[in-house]
């Protein structure tokens, strides 16, 4: 996972950080490290403490206990050193609705004290990179949700930050806009930017992150690559779907014989699923037996457990609560 840059020391170090708001322990002792040039996905449901951690790391919030450092600078005592090195986008950052896309970026560049000419050319570069050239002279209030997020992301990249914090970057976006934003984030990562990404979408962490930290009620409950986390939930599953529900009992018997445990039957979708080891061989066996029994297979396959299933097995509750409405603006 350490893909380059010289430093072997982590660029973000969090040590036993606590933060409470009244009785709510938003962070109850979080420690983690991010290696230079990697993407850490911070995964958890609403209210798990993800945003609180991002706010601590971006100097917006002082921790009650513990310490955190970015590029070796303490986020509390040396925040003026930290700020030039970081970018923040997502639900805690914003764009100014009444300014045009270009004006937004130029203002941010000016507030990084880049100088007028440099600010203008940087704004132009970013507008091109994030496909906002056509909308550059329009006020941000006319932008779609996806365009706003892209502008927000562009604003967070103005000073070419060493560490980029993306706080639920796709929350509230439609699937198309989400895919577009993922592509943009992948490009960023390819250029070597270190990223901390928070998300409540399991697929998003799986798609973008090198390493995933699962957080729940302010505590880290699991950590590892997507593959490692999936392995924790019992390896591969073999799933068979049939169109004729009358055949479900037969399929169940076959999977019980071939699988490593009791199969689960979902009558609503007509699927039967079982954990298997040595999947490909088992798959062939299942196909042969069902063929002999003259059961028509609508679909059959081996799959990794979804991160949702991993989350369920780790926490006892599902990761995605009700969908979160993105309030007006990139709040």
């Amino acid at each position, binding site marked *: 996972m350490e893909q380059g840059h010289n430093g072997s020391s982590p660029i973000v170090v969090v040590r036993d950080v606590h933060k409470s708001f009244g009785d709510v322990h938003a962070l109850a002792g979080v420690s983690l490290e991010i290696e230079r040039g990697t993407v850490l996905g911070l995964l958890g449901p609403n209210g798990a403490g993800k945003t609180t951690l991002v706010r601590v790391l971006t100097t917006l919030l002082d921790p009650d206990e513990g310490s955190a450092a970015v590029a070796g600078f303490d986020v509390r005592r040396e925040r003026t050193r930290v*700020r030039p090195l970081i970018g923040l986008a997502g639900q805690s950052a914003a764009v100014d609705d009444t300014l045009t896309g270009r004006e937004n970026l130029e203002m941010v560049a000016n507030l990084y004290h880049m100088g007028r000419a440099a600010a203008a050319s940087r704004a132009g570069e970013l507008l091109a990179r994030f496909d906002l050239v056509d909308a550059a002279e329009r006020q941000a209030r006319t932008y779609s949700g996806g365009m706003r997020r892209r502008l927000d992301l562009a604003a967070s990249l103005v000073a070419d930050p060493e560490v980029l914090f993306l706080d639920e970057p796709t929350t509230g976006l439609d699937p198309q806009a989400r895919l577009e934003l993922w592509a943009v984030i992948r490009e960023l990562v390819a250029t070597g930017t270190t990223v901390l990404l928070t998300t409540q979408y399991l697929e998003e962490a799986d798609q973008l992150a090198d390493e995933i930290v699962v957080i729940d009620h302010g505590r880290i409950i699991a950590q590892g690559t997507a593959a490692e986390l999936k392995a924790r939930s019992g390896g591969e599953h073999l799933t068979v779907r049939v169109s004729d529900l009358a055949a479900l009992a037969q399929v169940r018997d076959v999977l019980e014989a071939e699988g490593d445990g009791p199969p689960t039957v979902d009558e609503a979708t007509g699927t039967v699923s079982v954990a298997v080891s040595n999947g490909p061989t088992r798959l062939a066996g299942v196909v042969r037996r069902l063929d002999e029994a003259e059961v028509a297979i609508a679909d059959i396959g081996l799959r990794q457990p979804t991160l949702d299933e991993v989350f369920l097995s780790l926490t006892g509750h599902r990761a995605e609560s009700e969908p979160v409405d993105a309030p007006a603006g990139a709040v």
Partner: protein
Amino acid sequence: MVVSMDAIRVEARHAPGDILQLWKRNMLAYRRQPELMVFSTIQPVMFVLLFAFVFGGAIPTGPVEYIDFLLPGILAQSVLFGSTQTGVGLAVDVTSGMIDRYRTLPMARSAVVAGRILADTTRNVFVVGLMLGVGFLIGFRYHGTVAGAIAMPFVAVLFGQTFCWISAAIGTSVRRAETAQVASFVWLFPLVFVSSVFVPVETMPDWLEVVAENSPVTHTVNAMRGLALGTDFWEPLVWALAWMAGIMAVFVPLAVWRYRSIQ
């Protein structure tokens, strides 16, 4: 919050430029929000015309023409109402997340509030100029010295600037635009009306007259009238400046503290 030497160095070095950036941003926003333009132009003009023509005949102001009496008062009233926009604007920036953006930038901390107040003060300069122009059209005349004529609108703008700091403290405390608006007008309305803005305070009941006579609004408006009409202005002016200094002494630190405590 830890205040480091580094932070102080950032302030000293970047505050003027950053305040200018925020001023520019807020001025652009004003120009592009029609409702704010109405608030800043049509409403003050309407107030001048309504009060001059509707109440003008009914309010006895002695030997002084009512429009000459009214205009300094209504200038003060407009800059006071205008000052509420400081808090509203800051509250909007908190809810929209812009404040978070600013706070992660290596910019001067003071620039967000100071840039906002500078923009609101600029708008007040414009409003005062506009109202003076309309006043002249419907019969307002200066009767004092040239220095007094120049000083009068300047006192109004300074007064408005002072109240912007109260508004900033409110906006950074309540952090919601609607709440900031209500939390300002609920005390601003009585403050403006229980004063010499629209009527001579002698016409009020005794107990109210005592309140009105000691109001910062009355002192300021009386000073402005003195300057415009060529009558005595020193005493109310000293009182007015003392009030402004006192308000600033309390509300500048309060606004800064409230701004810093946004998390």
